[in-house]
């Protein structure tokens, strides 16, 4: 999340807090209690084995023609070359990006609206807040199963009853509309998390600021645009980037709603990669995974840049 800002901020002043630094840097190297190593090294070893090793193995096999079983040989960058010529992969990237962008926008608008509402003077605040955060504790997959029924049975029956013919068939079976159902359920599921970050942002704005604005006669919409929004901009940046990165990896909700269909209309990049395990194109999908990794890495770098800039401006 605020990875770098934390690293960047905490690096310099760590000294005074630190027992060894008081003794001077020369001694600090030799005088560390071995217990500290015992606290870190086992975790590091497990981490290297379970996270780093598979990543390296994956990169290695992306350079081979390994099918997931049997013999293999090196084929250089052939997998990568083929991926760029593969319409199915391209289609999954286009779907994933359009989906992630749309969802990010809708989630943030919805979450900000809910946060503003919860932060205002409303009755039964605790109860309403409890309700709004319920989706956060539920399994995305099961929620999608529930919505699956709503979309494919309830909605068509209702549409027929009220004479809305375009919706009389399940939108999950419609190549052009199925992705909107996925956006909707993802928003339902992801909005609470973003709302929490916005609430933290809204509560960090000192009330004196609004008092001053009240005195100046600024209306509430004006206050929102000129005061609230600029003051919580950092939280917005975090939400947008965290959300976008998360939505790029979308999987469970698609499994629960469309399974990637109709056809391959809603197949995400993650789903394509996973197909490498059963589809006999293991090394090919590993190359796809490496490309996917590079894209998320690029987004992370942008994230760090933006957050650092925010750190400076605040």
């Amino acid at each position, binding site marked *: 999340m605020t990875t770098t800002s934390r690293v960047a901020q905490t690096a310099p002043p760590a000294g005074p807090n630190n027992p060894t630094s008081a003794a001077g840097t020369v001694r600090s190297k030799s005088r560390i209690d071995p217990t500290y190593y015992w606290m870190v090294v086992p975790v590091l070893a497990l981490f290297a084995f379970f996270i780093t090793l598979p990543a390296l193995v994956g990169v290695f096999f992306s350079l081979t023609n390994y099918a997931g079983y049997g013999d293999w040989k090196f084929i250089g960058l052939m997998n990568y070359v083929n991926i760029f010529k593969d319409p199915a992969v391209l289609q999954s990237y286009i779907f994933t990006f359009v989906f992630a962008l749309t969802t990010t926008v809708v989630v943030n608008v919805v979450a900000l609206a809910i946060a503003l509402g919860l932060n205002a003077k409303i009755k039964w605040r605790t109860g309403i807040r409890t309700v709004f955060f319920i989706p956060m504790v539920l399994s995305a997959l099961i929620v999608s*199963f529930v919505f699956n029924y709503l979309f494919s049975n309830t909605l068509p029956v209702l549409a027929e009853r009220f004479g809305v013919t375009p919706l009389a068939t399940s939108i999950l079976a419609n190549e052009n509309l199925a992705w909107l159902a996925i956006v909707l359920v993802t928003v339902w599921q992801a909005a609470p998390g973003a709302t929490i970050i916005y609430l933290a942002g809204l509560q960090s704005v000192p009330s004196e600021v609004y008092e001053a604005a009240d005195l100046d006669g600024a209306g509430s919409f004006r206050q929102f645009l000129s005061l609230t929004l600029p003051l919580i901009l950092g939280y917005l940046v975090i939400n947008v980037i965290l959300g976008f990165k998360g939505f790029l990896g979308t999987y469970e909700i698609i499994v629960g709603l469309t399974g990637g269909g109709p056809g391959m209309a809603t197949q995400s990049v993650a789903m394509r990669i996973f197909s490498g395990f059963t589809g006999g194109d293991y090394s090919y999908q590993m190359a796809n995974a490496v490309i996917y990794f590079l894209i998320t890495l690029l987004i992370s770098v942008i994230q760090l840049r933006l957050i650092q800039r925010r750190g400076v401006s605040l």
Partner: protein
Amino acid sequence: MTASTLAASKHLTPDAPARSNRRSNREGFRINWWLTALMLAASLTVLLPLYFTVAMALKSPDQIGTGTGLAWPNPMNWDNFAAAYVATNFPRAFMSTAFVTVLSVLGSLASSSLVAYAIARNWNHRFFRGSFVYLLSAMFIPFPVIILPLIKQTALLGLDNPAGVVFLHVLGGISFNTLLYIAFVRSIPVELEESARMDGATTWQVFRKIIFPLLAPMNATVGIFAFLGSWNDFLLPQMLIADPALQTLPVVQMLFQGEFNTNYSLAFASYLMAMAPTLVVYILAQRWVLSGVMRGAVK
């Protein structure tokens, strides 16, 4: 800068309600009823699917028929739960999920607090700072990237079972959790430890008796995130657990997605049973859960 951010976050975290109350007192106790009505209406978007799930779970196949499914069943059909209990072998799936969740929570608490403590207290030593940066690298490696080799690796080691999932839940969350803890450990004055050390306490004892208890608020935050992430996870159990008999609750629900399965009442009863534990715990402890999650959001 650190001092100020820490101070700011401390100021924010504990009692969000108290703070917002102060704000609402600003213009007296005037409640915005229009907004309240709007928020109540909006909260139906959350409540309606839940109501629908309950209503469906209580219907007989005949009552579902070709209707919308929105009507409340009369009479209510409680047998669905017993049938779903048998069909999904609920106790076994529940135990498997509980096993993964409990161990993931304990593992996350223990490993990230230890790592964070060691790193925070030895920040100007290259090894510890390097370890920190290395662990953070996990934040840049999404699971889809490593999942294919991981499946093979866990299978080779005989970890294609819930225990393997525990390892990955703990290690996958370690960067974020360590990050949360480090900020908190820094706010604990070293003087507290030094007096204990003068009385002859070892580093382990200092950690167990002094640091870990002081970390309680962060333990709650990390524990909540680990619990929700683990209980509801679908990807890792689905990919890693080879024996269907050991599958967790979310994965077991796939049972009802067969093409020829039309027994929806059974399916919804099963969904409800899988969702109920987190839902009930959340509603009972919502103030505590939300303040814990809030603490994570502020960092």
